[in-house]
């Protein structure tokens, strides 16, 4: 992006992007730690994730304020306006991603008998892909890279496929081991949350694409 005549505008935009990146970094760490806490049953780690969500929320409201201020005071046009609008929306989505991680962390204590609980071993691979998506989409945002954003969108299929297979697996496990139904049901929610994280990463990718090019990426299904 070229420099602007009004230097203050540059500074504002830079700060806005910085805030989004900071939110993203926190959300990324939350995903990772919530899954780790879920696997190991680490209550302290889970608590840290829940606490971190407050910070993400605070950052989101800071982004909101700054974005509104930029629009009100500087009346940005064209790609500048797109940038600000995208930032506003992305902040909302990243906050949701943080919420899903928090939700996973909250379920940590609901899952019992981790050692002999097979379905748990399916989660890391799925979580890995979703975390990768969030990581890549934030990198795409930082670099204003529409190509990487499209790659992220393409990855979402994998997460969905994973979700379906985990769903089937867990349900059949429930049938065979009725004693663990409540834990297994919690896992279904966790898998659902990861799947939602993937979807939201896709949303962010679309907005990154929009901010960079001015149009939304072509829908592959259509």
């Amino acid at each position: 992006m070229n420099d602007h005549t009004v230097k203050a505008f540059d500074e504002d935009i830079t700060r806005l992007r910085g805030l989004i990146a900071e939110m993203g970094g926190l959300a990324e760490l939350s995903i990772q730690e919530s899954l780790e806490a879920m696997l190991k049953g680490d209550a302290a780690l889970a608590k840290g994730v829940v606490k971190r969500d407050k910070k993400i929320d605070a950052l989101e409201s800071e982004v909101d304020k700054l974005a509104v201020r930029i629009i009100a005071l500087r009346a940005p046009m064209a790609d500048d306006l797109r940038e600000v609008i995208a930032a506003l929306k992305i902040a909302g989505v990243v906050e949701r991603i943080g919420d899903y991680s928090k939700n996973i962390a909250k379920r940590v204590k609901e899952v019992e008998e981790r050692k002999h609980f097979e379905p748990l071993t399916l989660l890391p691979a799925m979580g890995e892909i979703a975390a990768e998506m969030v990581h890549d989409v934030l990198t795409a945002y930082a670099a204003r890279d529409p190509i990487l954003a499209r790659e992220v969108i393409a990855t979402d299929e994998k997460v969905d496929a994973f979700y379906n297979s985990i769903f089937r697996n867990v349900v059949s496990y429930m049938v065979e081991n009725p004693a663990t139904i409540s834990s297994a049901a919690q896992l279904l929610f966790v898998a659902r949350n990861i799947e939602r994280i993937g979807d939201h990463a896709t949303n962010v990718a679309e907005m990154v694409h929009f901010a960079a090019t001015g149009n939304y990426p072509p829908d592959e299904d259509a």
Partner: protein
Amino acid sequence: MDRSGTPLWPGLALAAATSIALVAYGVNPWLTLAVALVWAGSLFLIAINPPAEEIIKVEDPFSSDNMAQLVEYSGTPILVMEGSRITVANRAARKLLGKHIIGQDMRVAMRHPKAIKLLESKKNGAANIQGLVRRRDVWRINRQNLGNGVSVVELLNQTAETDIARSHTDFVANASHELRTPLASILGYVETIKDSEGNLPPEKTEKFLDVILGEGRRLQSLVSDLMSLSRIEAEKHDKPRENLPLAKLIERASKDAAGLERADRLEFDIEKDMTVLGDERQLEQLVRNLVDNALKYGDTDGKVTVSLSETDNAEAKISVTDTGNGIDPEHIPYLTKRFYRTDPGRSRAAGGTGLGLAIVKHIVERHLGRLDIASELGQGTTISARIPAQDT
């Protein structure tokens, strides 16, 4: 006079000499004197007003531009921040974090919460961060303030170190596990025999003693394998120097590995004798391990072919082929890992240590060669080592 840089006296002397010469040639002495005076006068004028000194401007070698150039080609990623904005990123940093980071908020470049905390604080410091660029890597960030809100950030890749540390602990854990298993059965059987106070039937005792002997041997071969592995690793970087003809060596080592009872299963296919630069003991061990594997894991009465041939690249190719079950393709990439077994039960029963191919790989590497494993399920396996040949 000194200021002028050109001494006055040679000029005057030249003028005087010319005047004397002119007089000597019979030119009017007065005219000569006048010329000499003008000449000397001009010399004095120049001496009094030396040409203006040239002022050479030396640029400040430590301006911020030059500093950026100074770090530009460093292999370590280096950033310079003014406040929280990145103003300079050298080539390595741009490669690592992307070209877009210059002029951006540092949080855009490094969004890990620990990195942000370090870079936002006004203090010097360092932090280890996992997942800075790719999700598995580990970087150490050093931040140093230069004053005026300017700070230098240096990024050091620690991924390899972390990996080495991890593989080291893995190795120790594996090795101690492998050592403990035979020890446990030795101790168990010895205790049983001891506790029975001689009431055990002799054939039982005999059986137990056999187990103890077998496990003891396994322990022995494990320890010697571990030792040769560490010896080979220690010598990894000095090249072998002996000129070794391979044909005899291969035959000797193969027979050695087969022993008397399996010797008839061996077949040799040696095109021509070749010489390589090698370490005799290690190459023998290489052949022994390959032949032993082939005899052990191939069909119990199938033939094992040991061949030596020349490749197009002037390499000596030692191949050991067996007929048997073959190896599942998914195992092949891991075969040379220490303690990796495709079928742990079978390998242990056959007295394997899980180190044979790891040793082979290290020996081949030390000889600057290459190891190929080709296997077809149900057909058999061919493992070949290619080692650069010497001209003979």
